[in-house]
């Protein structure tokens, strides 16, 4: 890569380092006008077929007369069922012990789409990408479909009855021994019903032990709040009220359990009201979406953040407390003789000033990676700033006595090793894959397994293979259950369909183990609900809770912390000053992955193909480092490196050079390299290569989050990563002019500049008066339009998956993504700004880009068969059945939003397995075949449905009745859609109110896009701006 230092890029925008360095690859990608077209040969045919088999496939009627089609009506149609009409059911999804309320759309009795529940406090109508992908997970043909029992190396199919019979005798005997040697390993789960079953189980088997393990958990937060407050607590933030928000290795908008809610609250505070908006500071090692949204970001190694917090605490107390008290607290000045002009020192002082000025209206949050001491110090800072009780409140953690997840898995491993475990019941999870490497759990289970091992799992995974019994777990869309949100709000999980593959929930399995008749899961949940609401009006409250998707006012009560703030403070900020990494071993940071989480979603094609919000990587993970680190280590982008951490090795992992990563750190995402995930995520048995590299072998129980001393050895071998960041680059005038032109695509300003020039966005491009070559279309009725607020967009990618789910967008696989053939109708362009080698200076802008629905659309002019034509309401209709695949339209699209089906991605392999997977399709959207162009249509199926319904009632469509899939899922409400002709519609009102920020991208081409943008406003701290620190 040519040297980056020679360029002055401090204010230019760029998409990737290869663009900035003008590498061969980027030029090749751009110069071939339509790169996706080149070289159709060379697809690995085998991988191709594997993906085909696993992707959703539509069978069935092609509409030809000679293909007889049957109609099979109900024998007795349920009262509220209308064939072909959708119904919605409220339910909830639990991930790692925190639930988000959902509203599931079903048609003819099968779930097809998931939306957020607007009434639910953790959702407010939105979801994240993983909840969207739950539909695909539900219909996954690789799901565990049978009860298996392994004897020796032989695995035989059994039935639930066989297991029930076994359980009766086995656990009957075990009960006589009071459960001696009985261990249960479960995932974190917020279900009160499961907790009740657990209590019953421990009562029936008093010597049994229940271990709870999540590879990505909140152990440190529990320990830190316990130290600070006296009991494990969950900090609850009011981000909408906070003027200053500080994230310390905390991804509040991305991976926090309440991230969907927090992103919405953050966006509320992001609105400029009376010339004011919130300000976000982020101090972190790996660039997160929160860091990408920050006004100021300081890239520090994760191990340095403790020192930073100490410094911040000192500086805050310095402003809050009188001198004497301060001396008592802090006998020695932590900064000592350090250099006051050090960027971190400047940052911390400016931050402390800002926090002090916004006492009681700020939030300081520590991330789950940071040790307990940091959480403790953060509580002290919030306390000192009077935030506690205002913007920061606390609720008690459920199950306060339980040991930490790490301690739990450690003690289980010790017991296994000591041969104390006779019966091991694993409820969900995949400990053989994701337990800390030093515990060697997989080895223990393989070499010296307990006499009886039982694994209940959605997929037959690495752990199931080692267990005697493998039981299919019911998905939350097909079972009864309950859950609590991060704030404690209680929801009932109700099934939307009978179990597809005969799975059962953890509650039901425990029912088989406990003495007496097993209650049905529904009865068990009703019993719990009765405990919560009492007998009075039980049935009514049960119905209301089912209907609304939550029990109102059921959030946990607030805990009033009494902090002993006068305890002596110690702590060193030395690490902060000796921060310059100059080579040698680096720090490794283990990250939760936005797609596969901890590995559990590895078999989801939607999530694997969703570009990571920051790296834009699909289908895999990488060792992410910044250009300086890579340079010093002699590592080149997209080459393989060897990772060695205290004797533990990962032989080959692709390196990925990403600006913004702290110097001297390498980030690795967990959850890849699965060998028994399935046809999509990797399966040794079926000869499907694992997607990405498994880094759990480096993760030990004493360093679950980050660790120093990682040695990186370059191998020099090239390894192409399927990153989408250079794809569909909008290139109007060639590379040289790009840097200058990007500011016209994404427009932004500081708050100060915006106050002085409220209409700055409209003056980014100067052009002569525009005259049309064509007769302009008229829209006498509805004029559909969309506006996207760049100030609110965090780039999380939920819209991409929502669009895929709504519009039957195919999965194409890594090889096709490498060719630039991903089919996402909506992409999120991510631009960097700033000097690439200075991680502190990197800024990020995200821009969602669906079809802009031009009024004078270039695509329409060139289609020889009129397959893309203008509708009266302003849509560029795409008529799949007319398209002959010339691709002229895509070539002529200035926004590069059209997608071509190079293959029949929905080919029916006449496989009976596809009978189930095709149920996931949205029946309201045509399945496109090979050779057909497709693109965003503003979810025209939703528009038509709303129009028909309104007109049936003799009315016009009400504003808000139509929500596009991307709009509905967006946690920040960045996307607004509606009728531009109706001046009272939300979209028209937004444009009118934010007129100065509103701009049409490439408006100078006079294509008159119906989708417009609101320019991004940043709110930098003037104190930091002047000193040149960003």
């Amino acid at each position, binding site marked *: 890569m040519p040297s980056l230092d020679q360029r002055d890029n401090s204010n230019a925008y760029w998409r990737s380092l290869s663009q900035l360095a003008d590498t061969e690859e980027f030029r090749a990608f751009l110069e071939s006008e339509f790169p996706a077209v080149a070289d159709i040969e060379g697809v690995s045919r085998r991988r191709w077929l594997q993906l085909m088999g696993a992707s959703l496939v539509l069978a069935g009627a092609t509409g030809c007369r000679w293909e007889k089609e049957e109609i099979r009506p109900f024998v007795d149609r349920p009262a509220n069922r*209308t064939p072909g*009409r959708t119904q919605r059911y409220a339910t909830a999804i639990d991930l790692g012990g925190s639930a988000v309320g959902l509203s599931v759309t079903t048609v003819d009795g099968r779930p097809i789409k998931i939306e957020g529940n607007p009434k639910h406090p953790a959702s407010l109508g939105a979801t994240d990408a993983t909840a969207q992908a739950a539909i695909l997970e539900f219909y996954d043909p690789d799901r565990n479909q049978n009860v298996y029992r392994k004897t020796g190396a032989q695995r035989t199919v059994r039935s639930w009855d066989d297991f029930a019979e076994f359980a009766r005798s086995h656990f009957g005997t075990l009960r006589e021994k009071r459960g001696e040697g009985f261990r249960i390993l479960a995932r974190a789960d917020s279900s009160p019903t499961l907790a009740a079953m657990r209590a019953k189980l421990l009562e029936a088997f008093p010597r049994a032990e229940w271990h709870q393990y999540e590879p990505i958990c909140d152990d440190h937060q529990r320990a830190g709040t316990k130290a600070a407050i006296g009991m494990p607590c969950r900090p609850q933030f009011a981000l909408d009220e906070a003027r200053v928000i500080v994230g310390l290795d905390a991804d509040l908008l991305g991976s926090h359990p309440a991230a969907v809610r927090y992103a919405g609250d953050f966006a509320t505070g992001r609105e400029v009201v009376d010339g004011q908006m919130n300000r976000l500071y982020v101090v972190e090692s790996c660039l997160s979406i929160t860091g990408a949204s920050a006004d100021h970001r300081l890239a520090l190694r994760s191990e340095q953040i403790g020192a930073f917090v100490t410094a911040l605490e000192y500086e805050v107390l310095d402003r809050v407390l009188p001198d004497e008290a301060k001396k008592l607290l802090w006998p020695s000045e932590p900064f000592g003789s350090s250099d006051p002009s050090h960027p971190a020192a400047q940052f911390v002082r400016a931050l402390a000033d800002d926090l002090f000025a916004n006492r009681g209206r700020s939030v300081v949050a520590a991330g789950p990676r940071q040790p307990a001491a940091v959480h403790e110090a953060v509580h002290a800072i919030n306390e000192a700033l009077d935030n506690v009780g205002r913007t920061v409140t606390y609720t008690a953690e459920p199950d306060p006595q339980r040991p930490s997840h790490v301690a739990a898995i450690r003690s289980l491993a010790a017991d296994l090793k000591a041969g104390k475990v006779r019966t091991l019941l694993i409820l969900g999870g995949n400990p053989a894959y994701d337990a800390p490497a030093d515990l060697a759990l997989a080895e223990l289970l393989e070499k010296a397994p307990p006499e009886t091992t039982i694994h209940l799992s959605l997929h037959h995974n690495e752990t199931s293979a080692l267990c005697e019994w493998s039981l299919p777990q019911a998905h939350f869309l097909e079972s009864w259950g309950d859950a609590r949100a991060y704030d404690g709000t209680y929801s009932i999980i109700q099934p939307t369909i009978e179990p597809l593959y005969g799975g059962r929930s953890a509650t039901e399995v425990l029912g088989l183990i406990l003495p007496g008749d097993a209650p049905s899961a529904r009865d068990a949940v009703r019993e719990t609900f009765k405990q919560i609401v009492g007998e009075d009006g039980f049935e009514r409250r049960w119905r209301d809770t089912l209907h609304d998707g939550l029990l109102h006012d059921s959030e946990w009560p607030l805990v009033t912390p009494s902090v002993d703030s006068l305890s002596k403070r110690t702590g060193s900020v030395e690490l902060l000053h000796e921060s310059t990494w100059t080579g040698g071993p680096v720090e490794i940071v283990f990250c939760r992955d936005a797609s596969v989480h901890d590995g559990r979603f590895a078999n989801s094609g939607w999530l694997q193909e969703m570009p990571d919000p920051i790296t834009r990587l699909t289908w895999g993970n990488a060792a992410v480092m910044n250009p300086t680190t890579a340079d010093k280590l002699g590592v080149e982008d997209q080459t393989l490196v060897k990772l060695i951490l205290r004797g533990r090795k990962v032989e080959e992992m692709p390196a990925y050079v990403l600006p913004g990563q702290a110097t001297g750190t390498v980030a690795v995402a967990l959850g890849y390299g699965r060998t028994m995930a399935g046809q999509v995520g990797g399966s040794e048995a079926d000869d499907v290569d694992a997607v990405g590299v498994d880094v759990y072998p480096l993760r030990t129980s004493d360093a679950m989050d980050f660790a120093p001393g990682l040695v990186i050895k370059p191998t020099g071998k090239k390894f192409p990563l399927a990153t989408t960041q250079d794809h569909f680059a909008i290139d109007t005038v060639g590379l040289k002019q790009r840097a200058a032109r990007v500011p016209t695509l994404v427009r932004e300003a500081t708050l100060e500049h915006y106050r002085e020039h409220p209409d700055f966005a409209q003056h980014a491009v100067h052009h002569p008066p525009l005259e049309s070559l064509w007769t302009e279309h008229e829209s006498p009725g509805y004029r559909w339009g969309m506006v996207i607020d760049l100030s609110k967009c965090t780039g999380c990618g939920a819209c991409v998956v929502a669009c895929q789910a709504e519009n039957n967008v195919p999965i194409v696989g890594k090889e096709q993504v490498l060719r630039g053939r991903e089919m996402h109708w909506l992409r999120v362009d991510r631009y960097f700004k700033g000097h690439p080698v200075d991680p502190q200076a990197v800024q990020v802008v995200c821009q969602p880009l669906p079809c802009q629905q031009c009024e004078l659309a270039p695509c329409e002019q060139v289609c020889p068969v009129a397959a893309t034509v203008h509708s009266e309401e302003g849509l560029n209709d795409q*008529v799949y059945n007319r398209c002959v695949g010339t691709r002229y339209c895509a070539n002529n699209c200035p926004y590069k939003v059209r997608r071509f089906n190079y293959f029949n991605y929905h080919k029916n392999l006449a496989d009976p397995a596809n009978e189930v997977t095709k149920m996931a399709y949205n029946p309201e959207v045509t399945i496109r075949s090979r050779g057909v162009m497709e693109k965003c249509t503003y979810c*025209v199926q939703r528009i038509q449905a709303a129009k028909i319904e309104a007109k049936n009632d003799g009315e016009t469509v009400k504003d808000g009745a139509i929500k596009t899939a991307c709009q509905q899922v967006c946690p920040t409400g960045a996307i607004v859609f509606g009728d531009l002709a109706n001046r009272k519609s939300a979209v028209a009102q937004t444009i009118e109110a934010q007129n100065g920020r509103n701009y049409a991208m490439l408006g100078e081409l006079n294509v008159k896009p119906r989708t417009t943008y609101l320019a991004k406003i940043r709110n930098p701290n003037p104190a930091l701006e002047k000193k040149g620190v960003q």
Partner: protein
Amino acid sequence: MGALAAIVPLYLVGIVYYGGSPQTTDVGYAPVQPVPFSHALHAGDLGIDCRYCHNTVEIAADAAVPPTATCMNCHSMIATDSPKLLPVRESAASGLPVRWVRVHDLPDFVYFDHSAHVSRGVGCVSCHGRIDRMEVVYQAERLSMGWCLECHRHPEPHLRPPDAITDLDWTSAENPAVLGAGLREKNNINPSTDCSTCHR
């Protein structure tokens, strides 16, 4: 020779055009149904309203084929031992559906909505013909795109008052064109010919 060279291609084109047109291939399609249900008897002689069985026609895209229970409303008392009704009784007893054969089958990329048409005043007869005279239901119209567009461009002849929607025998007392124009004006009927109206 020259004349033949001119006629043969014309002839072939004509054959293909006519032979492949929906008028030839689709109209008159009358598959054998598992139950010899007579619309002529039920809708014609007995005068049962279409919506007694196809009761979702006004609210949904599909005019659903009735559940077996609808048949049994009457046939648990009438013709209880008719051999023709055996599949219906079997269905009611076993809980398995009667497997009817679809007659009016549009391509899957066409999204037709019954409620949108019925509530605007397009009668059943316009698309389905005189069902009340059919012993075996057959496809009466072409149901091709050109045929749809004829009405979408000039709906007037097919509009009728709401109370006559299911009356297959209804004729306008006044000039149908005048009545249609009046209904169109009154009910704000503006059928769209945009592609996305039917194709999504």
